[in-house]
């Protein structure tokens, strides 16, 4: 540590200097108060000052006062040297800003002890400052640190027109699901691992072209990586040439995250959605630049995750509107803004409708029809998922009962309804379901509840109990998005589940992707061996359907057969089904709604 020693008495100064140097300190000596101020307030100056009380020009207490008047300067521990032992002098010195005092001539041991005490204070202060500006889990800078550095970059860009920087907003895809299924300790370890990979990705990235702005003395122009939320990281790329450098880093990060993380006994794979903005877009302030990166990240999520998007005027408004949805969502149920759409589930052997899946949409008075991807997570975060889920369940049962009564056939058509983890955990799902069935008159055997794969795994024993209570009412259960979670096969065999739904991500490209094809075959085989039906989601073309048929998959849904459709179109589809018509690909003949599924 560097210590400034200011004393005009050369004998005293030499004595103190030697004592401090023997203790391993770097000592800078001056013999007047003005020089002391200059050294202490310089960038990268000493962290501790030992100041003689009486000095030419400016005395020790005045130096203390001046140093303390620079509130933004890093804290300097100040010790006054005095031969005056009157208590009012000591009080005056401490009031001027000194932290401690030493009476001259100094006992070397006492001086060393007081300097060590000062070091402890500085270390504690450094620790507190670090904690206030860093994330405790990953050790990365936190949001406030990042905001400060971003503001500095914005200020710099206003002075230097050729200065460019980029902000990368990174959100780990499906982190909530990982946390829920593998537990928070695993999620925490994962975040630590992600932080390390981000650091490595940015630090070892030599392909970024740096701009022409030289760093001024004492100025830290290094890139900043911060964690600003549970699974949200931001990166400030300082002094770059243009957006391409941000893209290069985004690509490097995506590659860095590819190898799975080994956490305890788990092997966890993650991807990230990344939004990139730069100051090239003439943003007003730091918040605007961060918001634009956030908006681009949302776009990356909306386009299927595991990708990056650059900021553009089109996507820059997205998060603002999404954030505003929270309060609006509260009134959505009361104001009848929610509606259900229905997507047929067909038998893959003959493409005939066997059931429907109810899918909620929000008919927002300003933003129009909003898909569940844009509001279900908000509903989950705000707890609104409970009334929303209850409404969906009731409305789906009521509507399907009405259709089955109006368009009777040999076998009534069942309906599938998604149940969120919060509904499942809430405790009164069984009782409220009972009420819904009683009030709507809908037969339990025609209702299938779709649970996400992670949901029953969280507390498997309790889940099995609830699942049996549900099936005890007569409803069927299916596991949705199968293959994306972390199911234990042991538990899976104990769940009273009728069907598993293979996640659409495995079906996409199945005809070209051997790996996906093998996974799908394996899931179908697994499901059948456990006595379950297997439903493939997201079938988009005939080739996929043919392959799935070949693999023995029982049921399917997807754009190939029909998008989700408005309730008023369902009767026509039902009647066609009753007439024995199948949803033959490319000639369904039904009016289809915009592609919201």
């Amino acid at each position, binding site marked *: 540590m560097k210590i400034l020693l200011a004393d005009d*008495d050369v*004998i*005293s100064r*030499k004595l103190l200097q*030697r004592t401090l140097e023997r203790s391993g300190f770097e000592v800078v000596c001056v013999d007047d108060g003005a020089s002391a101020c200059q050294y202490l307030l310089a960038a990268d100056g000493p962290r501790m000052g030992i100041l*003689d009380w009486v000095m030419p020009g400016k005395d020790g207490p005045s130096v203390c006062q001046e140093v303390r008047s620079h509130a933004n300067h890093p804290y300097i521990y100040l010790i006054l040297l005095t031969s005056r032992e009157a208590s009012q002098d000591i009080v005056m010195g401490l009031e001027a800003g000194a932290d401690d005092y030493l009476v001259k*001539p100094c*006992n070397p041991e006492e001086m060393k002890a007081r300097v060590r005490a000062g070091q402890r204070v500085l270390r504690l202060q450094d620790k507190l400052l670090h904690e206030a500006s860093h994330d405790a889990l990953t050790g990365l800078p936190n949001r406030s640190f990042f905001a400060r550095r971003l503001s500095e970059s914005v200020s710099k860009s206003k002075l230097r027109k050729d200065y460019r920087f980029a902000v990368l907003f990174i959100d780990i895809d499906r982190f909530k699901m990982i946390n829920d299924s593998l537990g928070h300790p695993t999620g925490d370890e994962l975040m630590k691992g992600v932080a390390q990979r981000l650091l490595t990705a940015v630090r070892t990235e030599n392909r970024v072209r740096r701009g022409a702005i030289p760093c001024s003395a004492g100025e830290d122009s290094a890139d900043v990586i911060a964690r600003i939320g549970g699974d949200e990281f931001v990166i400030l790329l300082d002094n770059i040439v243009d957006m391409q450098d941000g893209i290069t880093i985004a690509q490097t990060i995506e590659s860095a995250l590819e190898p799975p993380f080994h956490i305890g006994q788990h092997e966890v794979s993650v991807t990230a959605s990344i939004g990139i903005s730069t100051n090239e877009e003439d943003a007003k302030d730091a918040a605007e630049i961060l918001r634009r990166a956030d908006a681009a990240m949302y776009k990356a999520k909306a386009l299927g995750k595991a990708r990056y998007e650059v900021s553009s005027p089109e996507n820059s408004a997205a998060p603002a509107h999404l954030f505003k949805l929270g309060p609006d969502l509260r009134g959505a149920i009361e104001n009848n803004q929610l509606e259900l759409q229905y997507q047929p589930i067909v038998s893959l052997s003959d493409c005939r409708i066997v059931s429907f899946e109810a899918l909620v949409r929000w008919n927002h008075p300003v933003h129009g029809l909003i898909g569940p991807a844009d509001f279900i997570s908000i509903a989950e975060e705000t707890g609104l998922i409970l009334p929303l889920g209850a409404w969906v369940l009731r409305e789906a049962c009521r509507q399907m009962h009405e259709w089955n009564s109006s368009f009777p056939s040999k076998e009534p058509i069942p309906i599938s309804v998604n149940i969120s983890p919060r509904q499942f955990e809430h405790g009164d799902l069984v009782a409220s379901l009972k009420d819904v069935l009683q009030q709507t008159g809908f037969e339990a055997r025609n209702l299938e509840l779709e649970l996400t794969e992670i949901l029953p795994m969280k507390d498997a024993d309790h889940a099995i109990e609830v699942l049996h209570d549900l099936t005890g009412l007569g409803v069927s259960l299916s596991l949705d998005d199968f293959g994306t979670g972390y199911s234990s096969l042991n538990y899976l065999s104990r769940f009273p589940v009728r069907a598993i739904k293979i996640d659409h991500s495995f079906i996409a490209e199945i005809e070209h992707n051997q790996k996906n094809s093998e996974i799908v075959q394996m899931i179908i085989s697994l499901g059948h061996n456990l006595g379950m039906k297997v439903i493939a989601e997201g079938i988009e073309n005939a080739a996929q359907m043919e392959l799935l048929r070949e693999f023995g998959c029982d049921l399917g849904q997807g754009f190939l057969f029909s998008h989700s459709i408005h309730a008023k179109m369902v009767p026509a589809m039902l009647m066609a089904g009753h007439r024995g018509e199948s949803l033959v690909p490319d000639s369904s003949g039904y009016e289809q709604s915009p592609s919201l599924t």
Partner: protein
Amino acid sequence: MHTDDITHDAAIDITELLAHVEYDRELLRDLLEVFAEEFPRLQFVLKDALMRQDLVLVQTTAHTLKGMLASLSFTTATASAKSIERMAILGTLDGISEELERLESHVAVAQKKLLVVCSEVVQ
């Protein structure tokens, strides 16, 4: 004269001084050399200030001298410097010249004794 004979001499507290320099005799010799240069300079400043009746300069110079002498544990000389400083603070010039003479004589005794200590160490 052996070191033990002078450690409790009134002019200099050798025990205290050796503790201050942490028994570093080399440092002690360095300090003596610096003192040999600094003391005459301060002596001159003080006498000149007295001649010009500049009480503020008398006070600050006496204060600096006091600190320097105390650092070397020149006990009696420190007391004289302290008296001069106090007289200057009180605004009286009477007796300062006499006190300065006493200070010079105390310093001479202490310096001599300290030189003996240093030379014993060298031998």
